[in-house]
């Protein structure tokens, strides 16, 4: 075998490409292009719908359970299956754990380094860092010695030139504003968050059998049977105690580390409460059913739409109003490029008409993305934690309102400040706190059911395909950490006839539609200042604030169409 070093190593999956026009030090127009998820129906067509989730969860390498859950939801909707209360609880706990995990990882490992300058942290005084840490939180890891140790470890990495995870940063960029001590504090918590997520995701190992790619989903419920007296049962009192402990530890981290860090970082970047707004339209399918999933009124996070930044009105969501355009996407529709199609009628006929690589620019007047352009009643929507929080806030969700209002008060900012890059970051953190405060209660509900002999976790009435109608179709939704995920399934003669997934990053990262309306990333980048086109850190800040599930390559173009900067992040 030859011994080689190759670049890039493995993971040959798609990426996101941003082309930004920069004039006078700010973005004047932007185009988002991505490769993604164009073939799930090719994979599941003809298969048993009860197995669709096993394939669907491979769609995404980052958050596998979200597609599994959306898929079983879709099949259960098609076959009109109600799941037992315990299955609902286990799904909610798995979903909350996924969201908490993803949000913490996003802030520290995927986004913090857009705001935190690692190299500057080497100049920090550990004693002053300790004072800073103790002034914002009572988290115990805050001694001078501790921060000195972290600094030494980072120094060692820099000296050995093995920054790897940190390798893409624009260290020393003028848009970094944190003092060295705050940078060191954030770097320390970056490392702690690596440990946090390693421990926390054990909840999935217990409830999912294995991770990644949980194995315990089942159309009609879950396979995690409850047995108060069986030491080997997937769920027994011992395991409930274990995941309760994990959840409590996580809640402490969120309260004492994540939230104070977000507030501290935001305090140094107040301008970013006024940048990166984007569409002003927000959609949420609703999340964490407290009863039947068919009744959105009982959802812990409500379903709804906000239009044109108007928080005084929440509009209803009807999945029948979702359409996808391919006007600027590398697909053909049988009836032309100008129509939008509901996913039930969705077609996926790829036809690449873009330039052959290597190329400098995409022809953005024509088709320029593998993502379709989803629209709701022909309007582009932003989805994600900010959308969920805004819909809850505008719906009068008392707990969300209190959380949001108290946070805004700290910055003396109005609710409209949330329509921003920092607003997305803050919403993600507040949602994490909300879920961390509730996940233990949901685990306790499960424990109570077990203690009172309410053990059902699967409804097998429609397991036999002989009980199914000849034709059925269903919509499965799930609020993934990144936003609204929908799966549409059509079942005929006991097999999948058509299947479409409209994923959060398609809503946010999708291209223009037939009317030329920008997608969420494209809109949010307008007016973003760019201090140094060779190092477009500010563009990455706004794109990353959406938590894209694709690696992002940014191409900055000046007024004459010359490529000035390229960035990967």
């Amino acid at each position, binding site marked *: 075998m*030859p011994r080689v070093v190759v670049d890039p*190593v493995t993971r040959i999956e798609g990426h996101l490409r941003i082309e930004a026009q920069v004039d006078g030090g700010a973005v004047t127009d932007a185009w988002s292009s991505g490769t993604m998820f164009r073939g799930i129906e090719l994979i599941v067509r003809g298969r048993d719908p009860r197995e669709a989730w096993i394939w669907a969860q*491979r769609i995404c390498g980052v958050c596998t359970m979200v597609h599994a859950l959306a898929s079983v939801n879709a099949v259960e909707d098609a076959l009109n299956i109600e799941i037992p209360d315990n299955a609902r609880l286990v799904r909610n706990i798995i979903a909350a754990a996924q969201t908490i995990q993803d949000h913490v990882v996003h802030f520290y490992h995927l986004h913090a380094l857009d705001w935190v300058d690692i190299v500057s942290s080497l100049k920090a005084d550990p004693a002053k860092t300790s004072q800073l840490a103790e002034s914002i939180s009572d988290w115990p890891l805050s001694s001078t010695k501790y921060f000195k140790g972290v600094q030494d*470890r980072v120094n060692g990495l820099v000296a050995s030139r093995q920054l790897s*995870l940190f390798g893409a940063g624009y260290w020393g960029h003028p848009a970094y504003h944190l003092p060295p001590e705050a940078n060191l504090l954030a770097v320390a918590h970056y490392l702690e968050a690596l440990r946090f997520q390693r421990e926390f995701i054990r909840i999935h*190992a217990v409830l999912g059998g*294995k991770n990644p790619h949980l194995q315990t989903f089942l159309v009609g419920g879950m396979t995690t049977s409850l047995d108060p007296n069986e030491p080997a049962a997937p769920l027994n009192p011992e395991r409930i105690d*274990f995941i309760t402990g994990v959840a409590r530890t996580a809640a402490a981290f969120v309260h004492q580390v994540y939230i104070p860090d977000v507030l501290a970082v935001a305090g140094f970047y107040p301008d970013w409460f006024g940048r990166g707004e984007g569409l002003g339209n927000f959609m949420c399918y609703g999340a964490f059913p407290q009863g039947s999933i068919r009744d959105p009124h009982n959802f812990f996070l409500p379903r709804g739409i906000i239009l044109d930044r108007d928080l005084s009105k929440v509009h209803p969501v009807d999945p029948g109003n979702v359409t996808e355009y391919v006007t600027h996407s590398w697909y053909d529709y049988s009836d032309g490029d100008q129509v939008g199609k509901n996913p039930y009628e969705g077609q996926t006929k790829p036809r690449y008409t873009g330039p052959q690589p290597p190329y400098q620019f995409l022809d953005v007047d024509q088709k320029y993305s593998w993502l379709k352009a989803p629209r709701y009643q022909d309007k582009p929507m932003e989805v994600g934690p900010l959308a969920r929080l805004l819909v809850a806030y505008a719906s009068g969700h008392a707990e969300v309102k209190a959380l949001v209002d108290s946070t805004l008060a700290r910055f003396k900012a109005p609710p409209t400040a949330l329509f921003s890059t920092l607003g997305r970051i803050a919403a993600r953190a507040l949602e994490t706190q909300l879920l961390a405060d509730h996940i233990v209660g949901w685990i306790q509900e499960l424990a109570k059911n077990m203690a009172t002999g309410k053990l059902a976790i699967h409804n097998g009435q429609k397991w036999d395909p002989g009980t199914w109608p000849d034709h059925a179709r269903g919509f499965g939704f799930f609020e993934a950490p990144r936003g609204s995920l929908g799966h549409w399934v059509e079942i005929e003669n006991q097999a999948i006839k058509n299947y479409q997934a409209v994923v959060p990053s398609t809503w946010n990262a999708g291209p223009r539609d037939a009317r030329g309306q920008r997608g969420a990333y494209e809109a949010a980048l307008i007016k973003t200042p760019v201090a140094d086109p060779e190092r477009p850190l500010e563009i990455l800040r706004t794109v990353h604030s959406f938590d894209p599930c694709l690696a*992002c390559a940014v191409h900055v173009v000046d007024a004459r169409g010359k490529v000035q900067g390229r960035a990967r992040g």
Partner: protein
Amino acid sequence: MAPFHFDTVVVGVGNTILSDDGVGVHAARALMQDPRLRPGVPILDGGTLGLELLGYISDARRILFLDAVDSGAAPGTLVRMTGRDLLDGRSRASVHQLGVADLIAAIALVSGKDPEIVVLGVQPATVDWGTSLSPAVHASVARLVEAALDQLRAWQPAAPLLRRRPRAAKRRPHRTTHHRCC
């Protein structure tokens, strides 16, 4: 509860719905069924990586990754790299697509440990949508499994991980199109 502390762990990496990208997972599944491997050797279906794997591998002394590796060679070509090769290389894609190198760096950061890491990879022919391997890569799975067993043997000469002789029993054929995913 899933065990988290291993001496040696094997991780198959890749996406099984992107044809050859999933070769590492296919090989890991074949390895799980190999009669020469003793039960209890942890072999993970790592999917497309991510920090979530950290909990399963960060305490291991030795980690063997099986993966699709684009080295520009002919499809089906096997390559072997060490963790050091990866860290010394220019490899740096993005934190959004955590590569093996990122995971290795994360292990060092989180545990301060420096596990011995070997990546055995196969050059893919296609990574387009599909659940089957291309013929060239399909043919390489058996070689990848042999290479993995060789590596485990080299790590553990006393062979606690491996049975001494292959059982005469017939081996199950390796499937590339799974109707049930395990």
